[in-house]
């Protein structure tokens, strides 16, 4: 039999039966509303955390690793356990020549920072800042945005120029607002350097010091000027495209151990962090959050849908006599099942849609608040852009419709399982 969804009589029936049980209908609808609302809020919050953390990592070379020297953990070749060793310039050169899989290799020196007083001076302004000696390659691993000037270049390295690039906070302390710092001279640990650039870090990943409060100078300059000999404090490297850094990291560590008389089984002597592995862990964490969100959200939604099924059973029971009349007049079982399931889907979808709508509005409001707090200078905000994707919204709606249909099935089958005459006799 043909059933028209556009026939007003079809909707009149749905409306009148829902209207008869106003409070119950409302409370039931609220269950579904709340379920989908919670799902949206949780998904949005998870997304915000994900976005916030990803922003902190933004553009950081994920296929990279960091390596430094620790005290040895095993006695070896006549050396005692606990020996202090250093990575040397020669090690870096050796790695450059012998590990072709490395794309960028950036050794670093960390200059000292006087804790008792200001180590950086410009006229009457001064501050206490960290000092890093770096190679131009470092910017390929941990990118900066240059506000003024440039980063360290090859010629700086070769000529050991006394130039420096300063973090934004250093600029704020040493210079007047809007003052052009390029070419200006500052005193760092007693030595004069020319400022050639000011940067804003792109990522929130810091080693030893906050990059915004750090002065970068050419690696070779720092090594020579402050008498570090041929010592390297640590180095970072990236693997070439398509090669996981986890594959070459052990190879690099093995070479360092061989060259520096460290036991092959020494797990402490060479310190290392594999950013790729860290990223992987992080992404598992976010998958975990997403899975949890859906489990809890769907659970809440399911509770709401069971409520809908319940109220539909009541509605069907109260309307048994009416359904009996309809059947006597020639309504087929299919017609009655369609009517009841549509009613259930209508109730779930409408309340779910409202929940979805309110959830998105709340997320948008939260997004605005986060944005404003960021603009107000709160750069430690870990949340960012709490929104759900269109596909998540559509999936939620489809789930609602499917759940609504399932919720209507039991009451519908009960309505038609009864003999027509028994339904008609029910008063």
């Amino acid at each position: 039999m043909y059933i028209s969804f556009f026939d007003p009589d079809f909707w009149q029936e749905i409306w009148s039966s829902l209207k008869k049980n106003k409070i119950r209908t409302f409370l039931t609808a609220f269950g579904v509303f709340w379920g989908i609302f919670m799902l949206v809020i949780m998904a949005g919050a998870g997304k915000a955390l994900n976005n916030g953390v990803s922003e902190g990592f933004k553009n950081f070379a994920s296929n990279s690793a960091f390596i430094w020297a620790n005290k040895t953990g095993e006695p070896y070749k006549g050396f005692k356990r606990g020996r202090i060793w250093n990575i040397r310039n020669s090690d870096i050169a050796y790695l450059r020549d012998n590990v072709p899989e490395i794309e960028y290799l950036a050794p670093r020196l960390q200059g000292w920072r006087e804790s008792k007083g200001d180590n950086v001076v410009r006229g009457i302004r001064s501050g206490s800042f960290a000092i890093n000696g770096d190679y131009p390659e470092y910017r390929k691993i941990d990118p900066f945005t240059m506000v003024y000037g440039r980063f360290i270049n090859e010629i700086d390295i070769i000529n050991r120029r006394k130039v420096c690039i300063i973090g934004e906070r250093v600029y704020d302390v040493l210079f007047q607002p809007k003052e052009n710092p390029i070419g200006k001279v500052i005193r760092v640990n007693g030595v004069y350097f020319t400022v050639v650039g000011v940067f804003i870090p792109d990522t929130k990943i810091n080693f030893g010091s906050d990059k915004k409060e750090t002065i970068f100078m050419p690696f070779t300059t720092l090594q020579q000027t402050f008498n570090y000999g041929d010592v390297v404090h640590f180095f970072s490297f990236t693997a070439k495209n398509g090669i996981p850094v986890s594959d070459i990291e052990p190879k690099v560590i093995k070479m360092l151990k061989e060259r520096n008389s460290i036991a092959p089984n020494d797990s402490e002597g060479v310190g290392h962090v594999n950013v790729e592995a860290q990223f992987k862990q992080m992404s598992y964490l976010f998958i975990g959050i997403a899975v949890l969100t859906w489990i809890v959200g769907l659970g809440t939604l399911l509770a709401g849908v069971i409520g809908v099924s319940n109220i539909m059973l009541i509605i069907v029971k109260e309307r048994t006599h009416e359904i009996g009349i309809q059947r006597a007049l020639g309504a087929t079982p299919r017609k009655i099942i369609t009517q009841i399931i549509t009613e259930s889907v209508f109730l779930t979808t409408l309340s779910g849609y409202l929940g979805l709508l309110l959830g998105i509005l709340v997320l948008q409001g939260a997004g605005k608040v986060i944005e404003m707090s960021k603009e107000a200078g709160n750069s430690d905000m870990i949340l960012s852009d709490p929104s759900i994707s269109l596909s998540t919204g559509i999936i939620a709606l489809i789930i609602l419709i499917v759940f609504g249909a399932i919720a209507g099935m039991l009451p519908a089958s009960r309505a038609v399982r009864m003999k027509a005459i028994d339904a008609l006799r029910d008063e």
Partner: protein
Amino acid sequence: MVDINELHKSYINGKNKLHVLKGVNLHIEAGEMVSIMGSSGSGKSTLLNILGILDNYDKGTYSLGGKLIQNMSETKAARYRNEMIGFVFQSFNLISFKTALENVALPLYYKGMGRKKRNLVAMSYLEKVGLEPWANHLPSEMSGGQKQRVAIARALIANPQLILADEPTGALDTHTSYEVMNLLREINEAGKTLIIVTHEHDISQMTDRIIRLRDGVIEREEFPVKAATV
């Protein structure tokens, strides 16, 4: 029109088996107006339910308009009810949230007719029962007689050959009862077969044939002297 042979029907209620119809033989010609009488428990309601394909039976045969009605799917039964049978009930059984017009149009809705067209047809049937001005009233705003006339219009709208009326005057006063019976008689004269279940003597006297049921079998048949319509 109606052909019933050796019809048996029992209800099973737990361990108790209640044998209600014990071999009913009934033959009703097209265009007849028949009443079924009997005390309560005689099986007249059960017989009417089987006639209306609202209930099934255990043994025997029942043919309606030449079609054997047996072991039908509910979908098929619904279609047969829709096309071949019009129901008039004691308690009217109008749908409370639908107007008179919408109630009358309902069988056509189940048939799949568009709203505009079926409301037009429904209006013409309301006109026939004299309730055109009440088309947009809800059942709760109408008197018993009016409600029963709406129900009769609803029974007629799908143009069925058989009208089954279960105590159609049971809830009405004498005057209204006679009005309703006159209406049913007019319908009969227009060619419909009518079967009326009643326990009121004067009502049964207005039909062509009275079938008396007793303890699940037809006790006897009577042919009342055709009374002048009141």
